């Protein structure tokens, strides 16, 4: 299997006038093609820092990051630009990368059609519900045709029911498009239900505490259905303990 992302003994130090903060101490892991992995850990442990490293927004103080493919980043909120229509929002990545042509436009319209946004193409973001906005944000990320999706708690601003439904939907979209995904979350159940692998981080400065390979027995592998798998509770309990000890 192709390794899409590889982190080797990463360390990150933030500098402020008050002093230096060691955010990440020693993190190594790799992600293979088509895998869905989650990074979980107590808040402020440097989870988002790791996504910033992978996307190249920041450089590590130590260690190496290898990325083999194009990155798509999905942030905590949708951050749709209120002065642009949904369509204009969705193509902003292509616009920035000067990739707008009839072919990419067609592909985007296809994506919007597949995921139920085509009728809202010329609406402004404030006219859409939270779930639809999140879907628009995902299509904006998919529009540039990334190989690796970085998801930074993308469901945390939604209410519980919408969150379950949208995470199910987005998971299916990611699987259908054959993308590799790295999800950062502090929601244990969300991580178990969506991932093939879970990386548990310690509190700051982050080190990898444990890596769980998730194998759930359920008829249909979708996040909502797999919440009922018998192994679900066991994973939940052991990850819960792992996190609790270090709070």
């Amino acid at each position, binding site marked *: 299997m192709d390794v899409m992302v590889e982190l080797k003994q990463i360390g990150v130090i933030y500098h402020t006038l008050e002093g230096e903060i060691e955010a990440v101490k020693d993190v190594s892991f790799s992600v293979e093609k088509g895998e869905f992995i989650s990074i979980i850990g107590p808040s402020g442990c440097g989870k988002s820092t790791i996504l910033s490293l992978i996307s190249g927004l920041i450089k590590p103080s130590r260690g190496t990051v290898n990325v083999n493919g194009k990155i798509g980043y999905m942030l*905590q*909120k949708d951050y749709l*630009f*209120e*002065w642009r229509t949904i369509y204009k929002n969705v193509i902003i990545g292509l616009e920035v990368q000067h990739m707008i042509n009839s072919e990419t436009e067609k592909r985007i319209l296809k994506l919007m059609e597949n995921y139920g946004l085509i009728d809202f193409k010329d609406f402004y973001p404030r006219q859409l519900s939270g779930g639809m906005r999140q879907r628009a944000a995902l299509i904006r990320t998919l529009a540039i045709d990334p190989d690796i999706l970085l998801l930074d708690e993308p469901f945390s601003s939604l209410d519980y029911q919408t969150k379950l439904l949208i995470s199910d939907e987005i998971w299916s979209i990611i699987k259908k498009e054959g993308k590799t995904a790295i999800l950062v979350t502090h929601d244990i159940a969300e991580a178990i239900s969506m991932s093939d692998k879970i990386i548990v981080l310690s509190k700051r400065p982050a080190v990898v505490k444990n890596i769980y390979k998730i194998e759930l027995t359920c008829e249909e592998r979708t996040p909502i259905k797999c919440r009922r798998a018998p192994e679900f509770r066991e994973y939940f309990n052991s990850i819960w303990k792992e996190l609790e000890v270090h709070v």
Partner: protein
Amino acid sequence: MYNGSQKINYSQEHLKFLKKVQRERLIIRICQISILIIFLLLWEWAANLRLIDPFITSQPSRILKTLALLYREGILFKHTMVTVIETVIGFLSGTLLGILIAIIFWWSDFIYRISEPYLVVLNSLPKIALGPILIVWIGNGQPAIIVMALVISIIVTILTILTGFMEVDEDKIKLLKTFGATKFQILTKVVLPSGIPSIISALKINIGLSWVGVIVGEFLVAREGLGYLIIYGGQVFKLDLVMTSIIILSIIAYLMYIAVLYIEKYIVKWN
């Protein structure tokens, strides 16, 4: 909600509510107009009865006569246009230059931090004090008046717009960075569009300040324009002329403000 194309059948209660809101609006408008009319009538009446001296306070009928006279002599249009053109040029150049400088400061934090103390001093300086210097440097004419309007408005413009630029959500910028956006793309795709509300509030402040600049400039240069009519009227004790000019001034200033509101509505259509 009434959405233009679609009509919805409302309940009786809602219709009542709408009617109430409409009636309140009407009452407010009637009160506003009545106050103006009563004030004008009182003024006229008090002057006719010599309760006040119309030589000093003027009176509505005299103002109308002056207006007609100025119109017949062809002076009204000429002086008004001079002032309006000066204000518009001062206003536009102050706004554009202000936006440009705000962009430079946003672009380079280094330049901004160096300039900051100077901006603070210039902001607190009463710019009118520069009037005589401007006339000596630029000459006793229209350019000096326009520069006066510009000098008065530009610092506030820079500060207002820059604050708007700085308040742009960092995560919106991060979003563009994840797509690999250049600084110029960040400027044109996020910072400028989300700075539009602050640019518009700068326009609203500017329009008033440009008028101040132009009128003070015309006081000093004293050749033509409404400011000149006011200062001239004051010197020769023609208070009718002063009052007439002030009234024309307030009407035009109001119209310009309305124009800015109209522009706002047109640009900020996503709300």
